[in-house]
């Protein structure tokens, strides 16, 4: 319990620090709002993170209004053996993994690298992929991407089928049973609640404000800005300071770039992974084959028309030069 209070204290400290640094820091400059039409990205410098969890609690405080308030008892869902209830409503303070009430948590790792033991704290949440499979494959468009690069799950439309989680390379979205639109249809036959994840405080961003986890961090670990600027900066730091980057190429490119003094494969080996505890491995573009097929889809009708025209051309030729055929 003490543990939590001290973290809360740090959160307050972080808030005070932000206030001291000037409220201007909390407002999103015009360029950051994506006025240029570009996606927003964040840069997280793991060298600075002390693992205080001020960001975790800032996220919780800032987004509490969006958290699920499930109706109990839960409807019986069939087939009972296949459809498991996922209930985090009695365990809202869990901060050692992602849950519907914890959209950001700190992964703590001890790694040995270059003969030195190092401790790293990694704030983990949705990566806000550039081409997010969670959004592209959501059957209802409830998971969708905004033009500012934010991927949001609309909790009013989500049936909680967890497809977004299944197709996410990091299995980020988390389900809460007993809430959402599925209750209004056939709750025992389809759906199982609503999926939740970091929405990059899209409502704050829309107001020109900066996400809570960024403003409340006492160490200034995170930075937000237009994707091109963030990438340029990340690459420059990697080059000049010999650090490693994650998120740039992963899943075809994400809007969350981590900077680490230790290679990410070393971190990943030491990482505690599992449900709600994402890996930090290289990830190929999940949408690559679909993108290739969609290009073929553009060519398909043209090929059909060309083939038909070719066939008819041969026929017309036959019709209009019967003598030649007869002579053969």
């Amino acid at each position, binding site marked *: 319990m003490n543990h939590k209070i001290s973290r809360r204290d740090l959160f307050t400290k972080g808030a005070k620090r932000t206030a001291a640094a000037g409220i201007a820091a909390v407002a999103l400059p015009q360029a950051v709002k994506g006025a240029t039409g570009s996606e927003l990205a964040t840069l997280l410098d793991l060298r600075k993170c002390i693992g205080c969890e001020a960001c975790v609690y800032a996220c919780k405080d800032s987004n509490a209004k969006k958290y699920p308030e499930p109706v109990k008892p839960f409807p019986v869902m069939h*087939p009972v053996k*296949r*459809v498991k209830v996922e209930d985090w409503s009695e365990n809202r303070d869990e901060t050692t993994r992602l849950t519907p009430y914890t959209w950001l948590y700190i992964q703590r790792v001890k790694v040995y690298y270059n003969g030195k033991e190092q401790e790293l704290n990694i704030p983990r949440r949705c990566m806000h992929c*550039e*081409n997010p499979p969670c959004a*592209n*494959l959501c*059957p*209802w*468009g*409830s998971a*969708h*991407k*905004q*033009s500012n690069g934010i991927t949001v799950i*609309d909790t009013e*439309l989500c049936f909680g*089928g*967890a*497809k977004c989680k*299944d*197709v996410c390379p990091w299995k980020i979205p988390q389900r809460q049973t007993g809430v959402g639109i599925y209750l209004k249809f056939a709750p025992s036959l*389809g759906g199982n609640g609503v999926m939740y994840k970091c929405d990059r405080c899209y409502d704050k961003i829309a107001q020109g404000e900066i996400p809570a986890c960024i403003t409340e961090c006492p160490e200034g670990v995170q930075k937000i800005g237009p994707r091109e600027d963030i990438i340029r900066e990340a690459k420059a730091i990697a080059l000049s300071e010999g650090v490693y980057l994650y998120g740039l190429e992963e899943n*075809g*490119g994400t809007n969350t770039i981590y900077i680490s003094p230790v290679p990410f494969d070393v971190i990943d080996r030491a990482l505690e992974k599992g449900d709600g505890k994402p890996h930090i491995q290289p990830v190929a573009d*999940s*949408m690559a*084959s*679909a*993108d290739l*097929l*969609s290009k*073929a*889809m553009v060519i*398909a*009708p*043209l*090929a*059909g*028309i060309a*083939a*038909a*025209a070719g*066939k*008819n051309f041969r*026929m017309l030729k036959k019709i209009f030069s019967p003598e030649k055929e007869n002579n053969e």
Partner: protein
Amino acid sequence: MNNSTDKSLKYARWIAIATLAALAITGFGQMPLYKRYYVSSIPGFRWTADYYITHNIHYAGAIILLTLTAYYTTRYFMQFRGVYRITRQGFGIILFLAVIAVSGILKVIASQKGVYFSLDFIFFLDLLHIIFSVLFLISAGIFKIIKLPWVERLEK
């Protein structure tokens, strides 16, 4: 019209039926149903629970169907118009397929990097796609049972 044309139409018909079946199976597979209801537990059907596989097969099916449609539509206007007549129910089917195709293509566009559609529009496309798919399947089934053809050969 010669025999080889009729034969090619017969093959095309079977390819279209197989493709439409694959599209229907993989289309419904976009909803999280096959794992829940043990379809993927049937030996040989494990792939039905892999969204990437069903999604790619769905796209491949769309490619085949679009190619066939473009091919036979072109040939219809260039060559078959005097030979075949599209029936009333045929026009209904064409309408359903057109809505499915247009909403599907728009959904493919929405899934491209750097393309952003509003949530409402995507939801509308999803609904349109699924409602018209169900309408198509039901009406095609009924026309088959009561033996109403989509196209008729004109008597010469």
